[in-house]
Every structure is written in C-alpha cells, then in structure tokens.
C-alpha cells in the first residue's frame, strides 16, 4: 500500500504538471475561454445541466432549511 501511494501520487503530480503546462501554452497562444465554453456547451449542454443542478439545490435549501 505504501508503494502504491507513492506511485499514484507521482503519476498524479506529473499529470497535474503536464495539464498546467498545456493550459499555460494554450493561454499564451491566444486561447479564448468564452469560445471554449461555447463549444463545450454546444456539445454537452453544460449550461442546462448547471442550471438544473442549481435549481435543485435552491429547492432543497428552501425545503430543508
């Protein structure tokens, strides 16, 4: 288990650094986050799910509190 922890943490750390590098490179080369969000929303309807979740959460807050 100890060696498993070491391996997993090492892999996660490397992946996080790689992801950070990719995001940094994209940001420096002219990425537009509004355009990215619009593309993802067109494909996965992220806004719709987000609004649904916030409405359910607000309803739960009013019912339970």
């Amino acid at each position: 288990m100890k060696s498993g922890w070491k391996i997993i943490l090492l892999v996660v750390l490397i992946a996080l650094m790689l992801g950070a590098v990719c995001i940094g490179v994209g940001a420096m080369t002219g990425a537009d986050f509004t355009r990215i969000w619009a593309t993802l929303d067109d494909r996965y309807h992220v806004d719709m799910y987000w609004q649904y979740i916030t409405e359910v959460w607000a309803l739960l807050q009013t019912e339970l509190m």
Partner: protein
Amino acid sequence: MEVKVINKQKFLAELGRLLTFMYEEDRQTALAMYSKMFDDAVDEQALLQFLVSPTRQAVVLARSYDAKERKLQVHTQTREEEPDYSDYDGQFPPFILAIDDLQQDAAARGIFAPLEEQPAVDEDQFSLFDDAASQEAPAQESAPASAPQVISPAPPAYQESEAPLPEDDNAPAKDSVSEFADAVDAFLADFAIADGELVPNRNDRPEPPAEEPDGPVFDDQPFQLDKLPGQENISPPEPSLDGGEQLSLEPAPMPEEDELPQAEEEEEQIATVRKARVFPLILYIIVSIPITLLGVALLLIPTLLWLSLAVTFVSAGVLVLTAAFAGFTIFADLMIILGLAVILLAIGLLFTWLFIWFIGGAIAGLIRGVCHLGGKWCYKEVAVR
C-alpha cells in the same frame, strides 16, 4: 542399551530388506556381491566392522543407484534370462562400482585372504605404506590385478571387463560414492540397528576399528578419478566426457545425515498448542460483530464518496478529451482542453486510489484487527510435550 550381535546372515537379511527400492535383479546382484565379500573375508567381524551396518551400505547403494537408468535397463533385459550389465552404455551400473570400490578398499585393508602366497605381514606394517600412495605397496595389495580375482563378485556377464588394471600412481582411486560413504560412516558410528530400526548408540558401542583414523581423509574439494587404460568399462557413465579424459565427480549433498538428529530434537521439543477460552471467546464474538459492522458501515461512507468522485472526474476527463478531438480546431483552444482533460483524469485517478485504499486497507484492516484482537484475548498457548 541392547547391542545387536550381527553376522553374515543377519547382515544380508537386513540389507536385503533395506534394498527394496532397487529392482529385483539389481538387488540380487548386490546381495550376491556382499555375500561374496563375506565368503572371501578372512575375519568376518573385521569385514562387519568395515561395512559398519546394513543401513550404511543401503545408503551407499541408494546414493549410487539411478532408478531411471536402471528402469530402462531392466525393461530391455526382461527377455533375457539373467541380467547383463555390459550394455549399460558399455559400462557398469554405479551401484556395482560402489560395491566394487568397497571390495577394493577392504582388500587394501587386508580383510580378504590373499590369492597368492605372500610372506606374512603384520597388519600394522600396512600402515607403513599408507602414506606413500605412489609406492609399490598399494599396487601389490590393492591392485585391481589381485582384487577382482579375490573378491570379484560380479556376474559372469561382466567379469570379462574386469581385466587387470594398473594402479594409479598418484592416489588411490575414489569416487563420490566412497567419499559419501565415509561421511555417512562418521554419522552412523553413533547408531546401531535394533529391531530393524536405527537407534542411537550411547556408550555401549564398540570402538571403530583402529584403521579408520588412518584412512584417507577427504576434503570438500572435488577430486579427480583418473581413467586408467583398463577401466574404461567400469567407470561411471558420464555423457559429457570424452574418452581417455579424467572424470571429475562432485561430492553430492547428504540429506540423510541431518534427518535423524533433527527428528530426535523435534521429539524432545515442547510443542505449544493454542487452546480457546470459551467464555471470553463467546463474549468477544457477541460484542465484536456489531462493533465491526458499525465500523465497516462508517468506513463505507467515505469509500462510496471517493468512488462517486472518482467516477465523476474520470468520466468528465474522458468527455473533455473526446471533445478536444471532435469540436476544436484552434490549437490554443485544443491545448486548453487537453490540459483540462489531463487534470481531470489525474484527480479521478487520485480518488480511485482513495476508494481502493479504503476498501483494501481501512475496511480489511479493521476486520483483520478485530480477528487478531480476538485471537489475542480469547486464546492461550498451552505447552504440550
């Protein structure tokens, strides 16, 4: 302790009973060779002291007996009326060589009657020639020229190959069986046969013969057995050897040497047996099962939480990764999406590992700890002889 008086008949009967691992033809041959040794011996007791015990000889033969090789040989000889050892790769089986070495060694010790009339030499005077291995004395006393004629017990089928052999000029020829036999001899000197079993000999065993300390001393180094001109047919089978070269035989390990003392020590050791204390055990089971179930249930909450988070992050990472190759055409946006996918997958991997750690580490550790605690509290060790 009872000392068993043994003679030729008892020795051969005991040896025949111990050689049941051999094929019948080989067993009869070996017994015939030993019987011939007794017939040729001047002093039967001296020969018995030299042979030490049937068990020792059985160990020597078992060490040199190759059952697989002999199986093939015996199967090929089933149609023949009597065993023919001459076709054993053109050589004799190793167990015959082992007995032959014993005979030569016994002849060298003067146990057998000389074939030709020689001036009576006191037995002590033989020791004068022991140190000078390259002298003429071994050639006269233990030379195979006389030994096969005096003690040759081999069947007629292979007697022709026992031509007179010149003695080695450097040292008396020994093979691994003889070396092993000396080691077994040292071990079995402390034991005697009583009722067919090997029993430890305390102080009532007679002293070993005086020639024993003067015998050749072997170290652990592999020794060389020079192949003599007339000995090509009686050397042990060695497939990797070329004709006319020296045989190098490694001394084999001796597993039988430590078995009997270990068995005695195990008998004398005091064993400990774990016995359950019934009432505390029942009480512990009644209390520990609900507590364990409660602990498992509590641990299942974070476990399932890690599982749900892991599923969420991994699936989000996969979706973002697939979107990166499907809907983005600008390089900068693609790098952002790839970076985001890698980060999501990394977090998902971390949560997956947390879930595995809770299942295999925390919950299994809790159950294992409860069982260990129960074993510690509810069992006691009782000494049993």
